[in-house]
């Protein structure tokens, strides 16, 4: 069922199949690719529609990033569109960019753990080409530091998903 190419690592379809088979029914949430921009839409309990976690195009990194957001969000945030975060697109002021980094720190750190588990190269994202290199480097250091904490204290859905990714990688 799983056809892993050694050169390309895990692909987005495989990540979707993995997420949906492990979490889909239990958490009433389905991961979808192909979006122009990512979005999380909570479950519609009135109409019996599961929550939708959309990632960009067929990008494995985008899928892992959105899954990281979902793993970090508790039950309250999972009832909100985009987990209650307002996305501020570039161009951003310096303050807005700092806020972006702050909001993204935990998520990108967990994303790096997911990437590591399935053999996809990770680099932190400023989501903004206009950011100075020194600021990106500073953020990269914080993400790496935060990832160390994740490795020590990872639990719950995030921990389970890391193991699932490792299983797939070891079967390749």
């Amino acid at each position, binding site marked *: 069922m799983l056809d892993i190419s050694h050169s390309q690592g895990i692909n987005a379809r495989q990540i979707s199949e993995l997420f949906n088979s492990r979490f889909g029914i239990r958490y009433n949430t389905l991961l979808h690719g192909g979006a122009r*921009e*990512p979005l999380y*839409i909570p479950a*519609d309990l009135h109409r019996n529609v599961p929550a939708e976690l959309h990632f960009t195009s067929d990008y494995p990194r985008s899928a892992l990033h959105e899954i990281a957001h979902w793993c970090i969000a508790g039950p309250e945030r999972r009832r909100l*569109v*985009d987990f209650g975060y307002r*996305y501020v697109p570039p161009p951003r002021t310096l303050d807005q960019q700092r806020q972006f980094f702050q909001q993204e720190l935990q998520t990108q750190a967990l994303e790096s753990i997911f990437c590591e588990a399935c053999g996809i190269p990770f680099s932190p994202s400023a989501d903004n080409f206009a950011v100075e290199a020194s600021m990106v480097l500073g953020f990269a250091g914080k993400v790496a530091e935060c990832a160390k904490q994740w490795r020590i204290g990872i639990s719950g859905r995030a921990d389970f998903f890391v193991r699932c990714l490792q299983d797939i990688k070891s079967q390749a």
Partner: protein
Amino acid sequence: MPGETENQSDKSLDASGLLCPEPLMLVRSELRSMKAGETLLVQATDPSTSRDLTNLCRFMGHELVSESQESECWTFLIRKG
């Protein structure tokens, strides 16, 4: 008063009194039945609707043409992309 804007929109949806994410669900469903270029006027009272509709428009490629607030009432005009 949204009256003048309402006359200029193709459709309108009153989500007043509903809590997020319900307004987004209704807007999404309404937009599905519309043609590209048509406009939808939305009224809502939950402040989170602004954030939700901004994110929804970005995701679906629609244009949030305008957004205004009068006391506890928000009015949005969306053009389907």
